[in-house]
């Protein structure tokens, strides 16, 4: 809502600078998005032409004497319309003006024109930057204050206000004036709504029937005959222009003017085009067609409300008028409508037709029927003023939606309980009164208010509390810390685990990313892989109004986002491309809301470590990702096992599921090359892993870690080099070695496949550390332990000690 300061001042004395005004409105809930200054001329005054003589040396120039109050000056003027006794805008030397010759704004220089000194300039509209006109000088009205600065007289400031949904009253200059009056503590002046009713009684000239009283709360109308269409007066055009409304003609301008002034939307019908002089307010018939003022033919459906005559629709109620009854140059009789429409129905109509107008915006926020006749009378008066004609006697007023005036009581006790300060009753009463509430004291600690019709947003006591708070200022309310008891802490292990996983993955060298929760359908399809046996497949949830094809479906997996992250970053530099994300999958199984399990997933590609001088370069592979998983699980004290899996998302033979406590908690593997290709990942290989956080939570040990004292006795180290079929899982070898009671740990230090061993066989070399809790082991014991271990390995896995040589 654009509010010109000059217009605002027509209803309320403004006693603060405009920036302060904007600030106060902002603080009180009507946010100012900025103040646009109009004018801003320097050294330019309202002058009076005392004398006009012919220039001695030029036929087309005149020599004028101008009084600007403090002094009289001589100026050469070429305008044809300059005349004695005019009030004009006079720019002294030094004033910055738009130069019509150079096309720039420049300071006026002292000049001698054809031998005569000119001490300034009488300005045109163009030179003042007020319009395009340059045929002659701007002639000011007779009551222009002689000698005052032109910027004081003609300048203006326009407040650009952002009005919240609860305050349709502030979509009007009067509404804003009431706000200003409230915080200044003064009162507004209401506009004049009286006019002569010289015509016949309106009931003889027009009939209105409201066929649907549910959605039409009130319908009022006046009738004016004998009007003359033409441009509206300059002052009205100026105000409309500054408020952002383009002037059209005097009748349309008045409807717009009063809408901006009062907030009441109005519509003027060319009454001669209304069949049988009869207006019917009803619901549209199914598929009823109607061409609105904007020239678009629309198909209407009940319960959209329409204004109709016996032949058909002539206007879309509360939204837009009809082309068939539009006011034109030839119009002489006006039926002026001022109504109150059902807010939700108006909104649904606008939504259905994708048509929002200044009018519908106001109606859908709840425009009270009490206000309809007021706007009607104001607009009728202005039409008579600017377009002539005769108003019919009386108005039509059909009021099916009459309701009791709202009364809300505010107690000082409630005020204090909500705000945390006491406000004296007198101040409460005074504040509410300046806002237009009728106040009646109830005892000495409450006030009963009658809510003004324009404040439909006030319905409960807390609404009044806010009125008090925002007018006295939120700054006056103290700032105190909470002192009520803190609720008992509720442990949230799932959340703690999630945050710990984040820390562990970052510590393992992975960069966290956060991806969009919606992905393309294709991305889901490509990354689907092979579902676990018996697993129910979730239904995809698509956005009804997707942001883009890239973000059409809620993700059921984190894979697409991570693969995209990898693809987007691979060109940047040669650092490990190790990323993880902790986020939700959205799995819908046809009932209720989807479940949103949280998953920690990662993608790893690129070099295996930060490239550094003097170190060998490696590429990230399966075992890097597995190492990350292992270290995370070890930190969480989870013992897991890894089993090869067959999932088409992964490279054949290079993926695993991870199981702990009897259930699958994670998966990992090299991503299948066709998937990489789909995402434009250029890395030769990328390893993906995924941890199901809910499953991991159940796999966490129930009890905390138990301390076990380290042995104080020396241990013994033995190397154990084995050969076994490549099909023997290393984990089994390791398990057998570590199952010997004297083996404290075994560390694999070499894996060899090649010419030194037979085909289909690999060599595994372990460093085995043996130690007892209660004694120093003898060489004999150590040898026996190794022999027994070897025997088991041979028997159970067919592994034999590798022969040196």
């Amino acid at each position: 809502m654009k509010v010109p300061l000059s217009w605002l001042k027509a209803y309320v004395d403004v006693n603060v600078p405009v920036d302060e005004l904007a600030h106060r409105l902002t603080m009180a809930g009507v946010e100012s998005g900025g103040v646009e200054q109009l004018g801003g001329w320097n050294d330019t005054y309202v002058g009076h032409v005392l004398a006009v003589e012919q220039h001695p040396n030029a036929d087309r120039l005149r020599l004028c004497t101008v009084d600007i109050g403090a002094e009289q000056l001589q100026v050469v003027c070429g305008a044809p319309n300059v005349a004695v006794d005019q009030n004009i805008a006079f720019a002294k030397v030094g004033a910055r003006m738009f130069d019509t010759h150079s096309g720039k704004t420049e300071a006026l220089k002292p000049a001698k024109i054809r031998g005569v000194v000119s001490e300034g300039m009488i300005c045109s509209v163009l030179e003042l930057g007020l319009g395009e006109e340059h045929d002659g000088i701007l002639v000011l009205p007779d009551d222009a204050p002689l000698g005052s600065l032109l910027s004081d007289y003609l300048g203006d400031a326009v407040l650009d206000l952002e009005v919240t949904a609860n305050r349709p009253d502030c979509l009007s200059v009067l509404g804003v004036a009431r706000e200003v009056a409230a915080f200044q503590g003064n009162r507004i002046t209401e506009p004049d709504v009286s006019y002569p009713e010289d015509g016949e009684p309106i009931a003889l000239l027009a009939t209105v029937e409201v066929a649907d009283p549910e959605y039409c709360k009130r319908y009022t109308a006046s009738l004016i005959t004998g009007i003359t269409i033409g441009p509206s007066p300059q002052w009205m055009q100026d105000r409309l222009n500054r408020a952002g409304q383009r002037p059209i003609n005097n009748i349309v301008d008045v409807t717009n003017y009063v809408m901006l002034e009062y907030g009441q939307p109005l519509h003027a019908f060319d009454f001669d085009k209304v069949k049988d002089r009869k207006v019917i307010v009803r619901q549209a018939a199914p598929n009823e067609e109607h061409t609105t003022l904007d020239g678009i033919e629309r198909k209407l459906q009940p319960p959209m409300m329409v204004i109709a005559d016996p032949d058909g629709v002539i206007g879309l109620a509360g939204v837009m008028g009809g082309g068939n009854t539009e006011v034109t140059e030839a119009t002489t009789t006006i039926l002026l409508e001022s109504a109150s429409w059902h807010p939700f129905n108006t909104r649904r109509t606008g939504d259905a037709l994708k048509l929002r107008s200044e009018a519908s915006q106001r109606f859908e926020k709840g425009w009270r029927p009490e206000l309809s006749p007021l706007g009607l009378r104001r607009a009728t008066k202005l039409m008579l003023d600017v377009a002539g004609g005769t108003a019919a006697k009386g108005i039509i007023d059909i009021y099916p939606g009459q309701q009791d005036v709202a009364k809300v009581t505010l107690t000082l006790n409630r005020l204090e309980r909500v705000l945390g300060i006491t406000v004296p009753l007198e101040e409460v009463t005074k504040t509410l009164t300046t806002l237009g509430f009728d106040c009646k004291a109830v005892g000495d600690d409450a006030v009963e208010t009658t809510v003004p019709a324009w404040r439909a947003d006030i319905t409960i006591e807390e609404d009044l509390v806010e009125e008090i708070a925002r007018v006295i200022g939120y700054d006056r309310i103290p700032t105190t810390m909470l002192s009520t008891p803190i609720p008992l802490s509720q442990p949230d292990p799932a959340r703690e685990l999630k945050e710990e996983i984040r820390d562990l993955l970052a510590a393992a060298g992975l960069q966290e990313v956060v991806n969009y929760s919606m992905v393309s359908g294709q991305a889901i399809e490509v990354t689907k892989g092979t579902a676990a046996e018996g697993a129910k497949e979730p239904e995809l949830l698509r956005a009804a109004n997707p942001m883009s094809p890239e973000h059409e479906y809620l993700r059921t997996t984190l894979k697409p986002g991570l693969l995209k992250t990898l693809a987007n970053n691979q060109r940047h530099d040669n650092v490990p491309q190790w990323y993880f994300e902790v986020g939700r999958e959205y799995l819908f199984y046809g009932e209720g809301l989807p479940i949103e399990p949280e998953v920690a997933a990662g993608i790893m590609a690129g070099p295996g470590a930060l490239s550094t001088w003097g170190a060998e370069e490696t590429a990230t592979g399966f075992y890097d990702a597995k190492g990350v998983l292992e270290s995370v699980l070890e930190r969480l004290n989870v013992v897991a096992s890894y089993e090869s899996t067959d999932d088409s998302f992964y490279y054949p033979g290079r993926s695993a599921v991870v199981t702990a406590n009897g259930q699958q908690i994670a998966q990992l593997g090299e991503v299948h090359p066709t998937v990489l290709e789909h995402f434009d990942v250029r890395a030769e290989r990328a390893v993906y892993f995924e941890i199901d956080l809910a499953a991991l939570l159940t796999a966490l040990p129930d009890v905390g870690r138990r301390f076990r004292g380290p042995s104080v006795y020396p241990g013994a180290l033995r190397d154990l080099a084995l050969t076994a079929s490549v099909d023997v899982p290393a984990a089994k070898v390791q398990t057998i070695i570590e199952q010997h009671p004297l083996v404290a740990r075994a560390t694999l230090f070499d894996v060899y496949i090649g010419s030194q061993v037979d085909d289909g066989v690999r060599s595994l070399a372990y460093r085995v550390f043996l130690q007892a809790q209660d004694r120093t082991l003898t060489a004999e014991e150590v040898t026996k332990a190794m022999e027994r271990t070897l025997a088991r390995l041979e028997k159970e896995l067919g592994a034999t000690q590798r022969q040196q040589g």
Partner: protein
Amino acid sequence: MTTAPEILGTLHNLKTIAVAELDAVTDADGIEAWRITYLGRKEGRITMIMKGMAVLDTESKRTVGAMANDVKALLESQLEARIEEMKSAQFNQASVAGRVDVTLPGRRPALGRLHPITQTLREITSAFGTMGFQIVEGPEVETDHYNFEMLNIPKDHPARDMFDTLWLDHTNADGEQDMLLRTHTSPMQARVMEVTKPPVRVVVPGRVYRYEATDATHEWHFAQVEGLAVDQGITFANLKGTLYEFARLIFGPERRVRFRCDFFPFVEPGVDMSIDCFNCDGAGNVKGSNDMCRICRGSGWIEIMGAGMVHPRVLEMSNIDPSVYTGFAFGVGVERIAMLKHGIDDIRYFYGNDARFLRQF
């Protein structure tokens, strides 16, 4: 026959020569050879002289023996000193040769970091944590009921315009769309109050969605932290106190905070909280010029959250008696906070996941 004076003379010479020779030794082998020559237990020169004393009388033995012991002790201490001296010389030499270039890059393990949204979320929740707010989380796919109606935003209410909604393409038996992506974390107000009776003091971090074109300051999904405190005796003054403390913890004590009236259907009175613009220090224009500050668009203030006293209807709908209990609620935009803290001028960086952006945090 050797006399005592002769032995004494020999000892004296021996001492002088041995010390001179020791000084001339340059390596560990020389040291060892010298030690064997002079201090060798079997055939060393001192040992030999001691052996030769057997022929002397008691008196002379005592004199010569004392001197021989003195010389031996002297040589031993000289030897020790010389070894120390050589070790230290060697070390000095080695350390000169083995100097490191302290400016060469170190060998670092791969460095992982948390996303700035995670970091900022943790800062925000921990700031409220110090004030007794516990973290809870809720679903992102929501119903109209929780996202709107329980928040005093009935169907067809004009306030719905404030929340451009991403609906899911799924309808119920009546043919109405019945799932949406939550437009704010506020649905958790009702969800929490339905299961927790006062005192309530929670913060709800989470992802929210708006059907909105993206630009430098708008994303169609972003993170939010909702807060809710409900109990007997909670006032607007407490809301101010809580949010001022939050701003102090997050932005430091020097940032100014502004509370102004604003409208959200689920609070009354409603609040918009802003901090003064870090870019122009609240001036609204670029220092030393008339150009408008592009961060705050000339206002000098940056909105960081909406808040207010919980609307009595909202309490009522969650079966909490508004005549007994009051409360406040707030919602803060996480990316906005991160942008202000780090001077990030485009919200789209957060979900763009450019590693060059992420590595800066």
